[in-house]
């Protein structure tokens, strides 16, 4: 128990050291002011104890002192705020071309899906010296993805995607904790992040996968009949999804939203919530029929449309599964969704 008493977490990411510097500054400031106050209190307590100073001197106050000890702490606070805000900007804005890993949190485990197709439970393999962006959702309650060694944390919410990113700098194995209380086995919802050298990671990535996440999504896209309405070769009953990801979408009530991962997910399982302008509300609602993992593969597939990472739907044959489409509308005079 005593032999290995760490008092500080390992620093294994690019952000970790920066966070630590700010932390040390805060510790220093706290220590300084605490010692200052405690020292003054102790000194006054001794110097002005009743035996030594039987009569007190009444002092009303001092505007100069009030201003001093208001303005100086305010200035220090603003400095800390600015520094922290700068770090937070960096922490919440993943760099472009970060490698994406999807995560689903559920009571009480973590499920990871890599772009290359591997799936993991509670253990996350990542390469060192790469930007990694986590795109996460929960199947049930709110969880939180916390890797102390990277100094990152992000809550994982049901019904939408949240994300965080990191750039691991030191190979090794690090704790992964769920840090948002989620029920009985909250303290059991722990895992590991394994940071590997690039070569070792390539080897690991190449083994044990049936195909990339996007290709799984492509299969699901066909299986659920999406390609019947969402075409790229002609205007189908649904909007063309090629190049959609990340663009603004005009809705039928006049609002404009950005087609991010959460939008794509919501549109699959609850299409009525946001209807693209010019289209009818005829998309079947897949709530309860598609698991979060399949949703992730679909999202990954759609994200890749137009970027060359996914095959466009136009090249697909007939859908492989039959499913209820609903009443057949007349050919719609649709204008394409806002691009």
């Amino acid at each position, binding site marked *: 128990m005593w032999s290995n008493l760490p008092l500080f977490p390992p620093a294994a990411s690019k952000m970790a050291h920066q966070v630590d510097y700010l932390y040390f500054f805060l510790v220093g400031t706290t220590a300084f002011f605490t010692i200052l106050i405690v020292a003054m209190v102790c000194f006054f307590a001794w110097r002005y104890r009743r035996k030594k100073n039987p009569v007190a001197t009444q002092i009303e106050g001092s505007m100069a002192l009030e201003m001093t000890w208001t303005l100086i702490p305010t200035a220090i606070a603003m400095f800390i705020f600015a520094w922290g805000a700068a770090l937070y900007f960096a922490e919440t804005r993943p760099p472009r071309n970060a490698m994406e890993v999807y995560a689903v949190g559920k009571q009480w485990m973590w499920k990871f899906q890599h772009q290359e197709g591997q799936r993991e439970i509670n253990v996350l393999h990542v390469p060192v010296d790469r930007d990694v962006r986590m795109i996460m959702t929960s199947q049930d309650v709110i969880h939180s993805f916390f890797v102390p060694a990277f100094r990152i944390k992000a809550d994982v919410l049901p019904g939408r995607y949240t994300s965080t990113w990191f750039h691991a700098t030191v190979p090794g194995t690090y704790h992964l904790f769920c840090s948002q209380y989620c029920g009985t086995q909250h303290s059991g919802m722990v895992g590991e992040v394994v940071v590997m050298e690039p070569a070792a990671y390539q080897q690991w990535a190449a083994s044990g996968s049936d195909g990339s996440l996007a290709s799984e999504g492509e299969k699901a896209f066909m299986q659920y009949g999406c390609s019947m309405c969402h075409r790229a070769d002609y205007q189908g009953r649904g909007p063309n999804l090629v190049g959609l990801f990340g663009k603004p979408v005009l809705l039928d009530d006049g609002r404009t939203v950005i087609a991010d991962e959460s939008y794509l997910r919501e549109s699959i399982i*609850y299409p009525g919530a946001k*209807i693209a302008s010019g289209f009818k509300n005829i998309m079947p609602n897949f709530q309860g029929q598609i698991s979060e993992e399949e949703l992730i593969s679909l999202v990954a597939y759609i994200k890749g449309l137009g970027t060359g990472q996914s095959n466009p739907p136009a090249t697909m044959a007939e859908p492989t599964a039959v499913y209820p489409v609903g009443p057949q509308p007349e050919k719609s005079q649709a204008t394409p969704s806002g691009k």
Partner: protein
Amino acid sequence: MHASQTAAHELRHHFADMDQQRDTASFGMWIFLVTEIMFFGGLFLSYMLYRFLYPTAFLEGSRHMNIRLGALNTAVLICSSLTMVLAVRCVKINQRKLTVIFLLITMLLGLAFMGVKAIEYHEHWVAREVPGPAFQFEGTDPRHTQIFFSLYFAMTGLHALHMIIGCGLVLFLMINAWRGAYNSEYYNPVEIGGLYWHFVDIVWIWLFPLLYLISHQHVGGGF
């Protein structure tokens, strides 16, 4: 009835004089109404958020409100506020009988409001618009329309609860007024009772347009 006798009888022991007692009671009622604003405020905030995010769902839900009954209730409450004000006026000029009559009408109008509300709730129940396992709604976005109805029942339900308390309060004032407890020297309880009643009325003035008037069209009962 000797005014000074009643006044001395009513002075609570910890107040210096009737003026202080009256000012304190009025101030207390105003602070209480501020807490009520905050209490309803949470619901109004939730409403604003969901309406902003899902305007179509709210529009469709609002179309199913019975606007005739809603407008009737608005008129009923406004009239009840009028009679309440008249009651306060009458007590200030020592018109005991009229005070009691106006308080009675106020209470009856309040009860009428509750009756109309009960009819509306029943209509919603029959139309399967009450949130919960029995909820069924044909619309673009039934999930969020259910939230509209949840907020509708929460807000009007909370309002109705305050109405019930208000009716009880007015009944209490009415009985006291009948017994001659209030006169031109001492009418503060009627005044602050009136404050409470007007507040409940004003909450309804906010609820009615937000819940009933989102859309020009209404299913069933329209104008």
